[in-house]
């Protein structure tokens, strides 16, 4: 049972205190992400799923509990956990390639090797020909491809993605999902993905964790037995529809609770 987890989120709670009242954002979540698996946290907005990811990244401190990566307790952000945000976080004064090289430059990798690695990832995310372009000339989807390549170029132990396609239009979003599965199938790196989109969660993942509305807890775990490589046609398969229905039912209950909770405030 206790097969060593790649990332172990251990009894994490997060409580916000202000003006004499407390808000419990996350209430004792325990998650074990296996090595090389694609895991997704699915939850209604405001359930604390982004906070959980930020805690795993080391950008936020939990009120209780701890996070272990390969058995080591994490104490802050680090190169071993790459992160991609929903907002466009490319450095606008650096070109596409310079952005991808950023992390390598910090760790003192030699120049030639930096160039090689950056070029390799430029091509992996399909941006050959855009190496010397500034982010201002890129579309939203291309910006997120650079952000993913930048995080991967560091060769992290795990990739954390916080609704990375949330700001994209439906068509681009769907293409980006396919690109991400391709990259994952090729590199086979551990991924923890956060989204509120049921279809996205099932299409991408090996396992989906459904969260409750505030306070955030894990409500259910759904295994996704769809074969790899994933192709968008699978979205209309019987298995996919069945899984989607199940996840939708679960998340719908929580979304309704969330609105009632707000009304009652």
């Amino acid at each position, binding site marked *: 049972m206790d097969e060593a987890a790649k990332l172990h989120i251990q009894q994490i709670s997060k409580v916000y205190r202000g003006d004499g009242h407390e808000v419990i954002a996350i209430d004792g979540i325990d998650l074990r992400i296996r090595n090389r698996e694609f895991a997704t946290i699915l939850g209604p907005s405001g359930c604390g799923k982004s906070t959980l990811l930020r805690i795993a*990244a*080391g*950008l936020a401190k939990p009120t209780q509990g701890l996070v272990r990566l390969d058995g080591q307790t994490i104490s*802050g*952000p*680090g*190169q071993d*956990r*790459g*992160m991609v*945000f929903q*907002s466009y*976080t490319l*450095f*606008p*004064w*650096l070109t596409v390639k310079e952005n991808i090289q*950023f*992390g390598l430059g*910090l*760790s003192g990798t030699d120049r030639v090797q930096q160039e090689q690695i950056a070029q390799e990832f430029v091509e992996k995310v399909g941006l050959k020909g855009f190496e010397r372009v*500034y*982010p*201002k000339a890129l579309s939203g989807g291309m910006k997120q491809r650079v*952000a993913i390549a*930048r*995080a991967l170029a*560091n060769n992290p132990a795990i990739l*954390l993605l916080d609704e990375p396609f949330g700001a994209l239009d439906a068509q681009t979003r769907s293409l980006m999902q396919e690109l991400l599965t391709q990259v994952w199938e090729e590199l086979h790196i551990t991924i923890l993905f956060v989204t509120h989109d049921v279809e996205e969660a099932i299409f991408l993942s090996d396992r989906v964790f459904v969260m409750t509305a505030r306070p955030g807890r894990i409500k259910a775990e759904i295994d996704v037995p769809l074969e790899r490589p994933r192709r968008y046609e699978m979205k209309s398969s019987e298995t996919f529809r069945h899984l989607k229905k199940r996840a939708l039912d679960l998340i719908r209950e929580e979304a309704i609770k969330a609105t009632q909770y707000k009304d009652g405030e």
Partner: protein
Amino acid sequence: MQNSQEPNIERARRRLGDLLNPREPIPTGLYISLSIGSFAVLLVVWAALTYSKFIDPLFLPTPTRVFQAGLDLFLEFGFTTDILNSTYRVMLGFVIAAVIGVPLGLLMGTFKVAEALIEPIMGFIRYMPASAFIPLFILWVGIGDVEKVAIIFVGSFFQLVLMVAVVAKNVHQDMLETAYTLGAKRIQVIWKVLLPASLPGILDTLRIIVGWAWTYIVVAELVASSSGIGYMIISAQRMLRTGSIIFGILTIGVLGLVTDYSFKWLHQKLFPWVE
């Protein structure tokens, strides 16, 4: 005949309507014509009021008289030296303010400790009018260049610090956090992210501040001075040479405009990546 004309009128009306859409871009040619046009209208009104003798030339001379006064200033009264003196004072005061103010503003926008230390004082002093410091500075350092430069410094420094702090504060938190997750240490986040991200905003701030510095120089030179554009203006007033006063004011306007455009040009050259 009527049939072919109607769509033309329709089209013209539609095009006119387009110009009044909020924020609707207009053709470059039209933009430039309108900009030049506003200057032309000003000139025409001025000419009409003065050549017609509607206004006493003692109060407002004709454009030709002002131009003549300007020529005299350059040829007979050494106006070039006045301009150079004023420019020197403005630039010295401005550069000193920038050299100290930019790092201080960055510190203030980055560290809450620095903000708590600096912001209240800056916020307090910035409401004191720079011109009110003139008598004090004359008392302290006399009526030479140092006093003029000090006025420019006081007039620009405190605003500059606060504005640069805002620029640094506006750098998106997600961008800093991304740098941390890519392995950046605190010092690297400041040098490699916060600083480059702030540079265009800092240059914009400097552009605005140098404009203010140009307005303070006249105030500084109007009181107890022996050279500079402000000094020329106050001497001309004593002699009732209204044309020279107007020419002096116009000169400062042109100098300000040139500085402004130089900064804009520099901005485009240095930061081609800004959206």
